[in-house]
């Protein structure tokens, strides 16, 4: 059978979702941001909620997320995405609202906004991309940088005696009564992506229920900041990030008691 006979519209099984714009992604080769953008947009496409979804972009590598996602979006000041989302969701309660934030944005400068939005039980979704480093500004230490891990502001590795400990903010927000669904995912293998996409779908479905905040952490890579190629970075992530930030659901909705 000739390739030409396979590549026909009727045989199409996977194509880039049209909810991603044609603009080439500004991320480094192999960066998980692109995959995470894509699965969020795929879920919005599958649920047919493009006209009802409003996203908030952060400051950091994904500051330009609005250039790639074909939905209405706002770009927030550093760390304040959840404050914007709080207002939008309260004024437009029938819309789907999500924030998309990195570790510096969400777990350092925006810690107060993150925790209070979670604690108030705002009915939007937080997508938290944790790669343990500040990518945009050139590889500085993040609140989630692992002990011993090197970054440009801890060139000899993070010494927790001097620099403090990495913050497991996902476990932290799971303790709050306002969060409804908290899970930690990754997008480095096909199976991980498929699981992560299910989690994204769950979050959007749950946010219809108005029962609280849905929080998805993606443990992701930063091959530029980690100074590896993409494949090495994914392997390093499995060996080093996952033991500290284990994948899986942290808080799942309990079935209603009858």
């Amino acid at each position, binding site marked *: 059978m000739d390739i030409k006979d396979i590549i026909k519209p009727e045989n199409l099984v996977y194509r880039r979702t049209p909810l991603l714009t044609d603009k080439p992604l500004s991320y480094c080769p192999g960066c998980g941001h692109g995959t995470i953008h894509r699965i969020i947009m795929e879920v919005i496409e599958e649920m047919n909620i493009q006209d009802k979804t409003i996203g908030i972009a952060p400051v950091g590598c994904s500051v330009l997320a609005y250039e790639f996602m074909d939905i209405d979006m706002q770009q927030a000041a550093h760390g304040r995405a959840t404050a914007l989302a709080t*207002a939008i969701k309260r004024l*437009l309660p029938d819309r789907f609202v999500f924030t998309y934030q990195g570790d510096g944005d969400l777990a350092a400068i925006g810690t107060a906004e993150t925790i209070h939005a979670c604690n108030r039980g705002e009915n939007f979704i937080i997508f938290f991309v944790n790669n343990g480093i500040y990518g945009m500004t050139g590889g500085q230490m993040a609140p989630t940088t692992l002990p011993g891990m090197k970054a440009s502001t801890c060139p000899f590795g993070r010494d927790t005696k001097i620099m403090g400990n990495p913050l497991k903010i996902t476990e932290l927000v799971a303790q709050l009564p306002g969060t409804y669904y908290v899970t930690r995912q990754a997008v480095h293998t096909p199976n991980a992506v498929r699981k992560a996409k299910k989690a994204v779908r769950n979050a959007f479905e749950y946010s219809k229920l108005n029962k609280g905040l849905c929080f998805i952490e993606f443990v992701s890579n930063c091959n530029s900041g980690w100074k590896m190629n993409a494949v090495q970075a994914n392997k390093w992530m499995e060996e080093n990030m996952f033991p500290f930030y284990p994948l899986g659901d942290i808080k799942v909705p309990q079935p209603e008691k009858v």
Partner: protein
Amino acid sequence: MGELRLMKGNEAFAEACIRAGVDAYFGYPITPQSEVIEYLMAAKPYETTGMVVLQAESEIASINMCYGAAGAGFLPATSSSSPGISLKMEGISYMAGAELPLIILNVVRGGPGLGDIQPAQSDYFQATKGGGHGDYRLYVLAPSSVQEMSDFVLIAKEIAFKYRNPVMILSDGVIGQMMEKVELFDPIPRRTIEEVEKQCPWATTGKKPNRQRNIITSLDLDPYRQEKHVLKLYEKYKRMEQEDVRYEEIQVSDAEYLLVAYGSSARICQKTVDLARVEGIKLGLLRAITLFPFPGKRIAELAKQVKGILAVEMSTGQLVEDVKLSVNCSVPVYHFGRTGGVIHTPTEVLDAVKNLLMK
């Protein structure tokens, strides 16, 4: 005639926000303006007009909630006092950059730093020269009565949408805390979502199939496009100066000496003018109602008829700089004012007129 009530300035502002059809209020307590959120929480407008009222975790969160609301086409309001306004300044700069409507009330207290909780007018520079970073201006209204704490909400609403720019009501602890009779305007219904989308086609309400996606941002990494954007903002500020300067003149037609003041200082100066006239001193007062755009043109005209001008403000001299720039050395311009939360008396101002202007 509208409904009459005896109210604090802060309460009048809160009630006016509900009546003006403001869509949301996000605040954080700080003396001397906490009555605003207390009044709103007690009035529960979310049960009547649907106005959202929320006490945020900080001034920073509250201003960014305003950003989100305004970006979705709604009119938000927030209030604070000097130290809290400093915290909001980043968000205000972002909102000016993203061209978003907003009503901000600053009930100014003495400072710098934590200062005290008494009335002051020492945030003039912050309010009129930007305050946050970057090339931007706020439209700044200065009420001098509880009545104006209510009325100016309507002006602020109109201007915020006319220019897609934040509007600051620069009040102070006197106006915020004192009680006066207020005639309240009749309630205006909040816009429906359809009306919001019609008035604000740029708003992020959800991308409809018949339009491009809407993006609210203050970021543009291309310097040539950023320059174009900043110049577009500049044109708006120039237009404000052409079309929306507001001031009030008191006994200026025959004045030989002129006071320039705003807010509670202007009320004190009004008494000074009366005292001066009793003594036969031809003193007049120009009360600036908008501090940006500044009524500098009118002050320059009046400079041709008077022998000197005294800028009276509860600070060590901020408004006075704009007065000097306006008259361009054509007449002597002096400053008088108490600061740090101390309020000058009409007699002190009259003494300053005699000692500085008439010496």
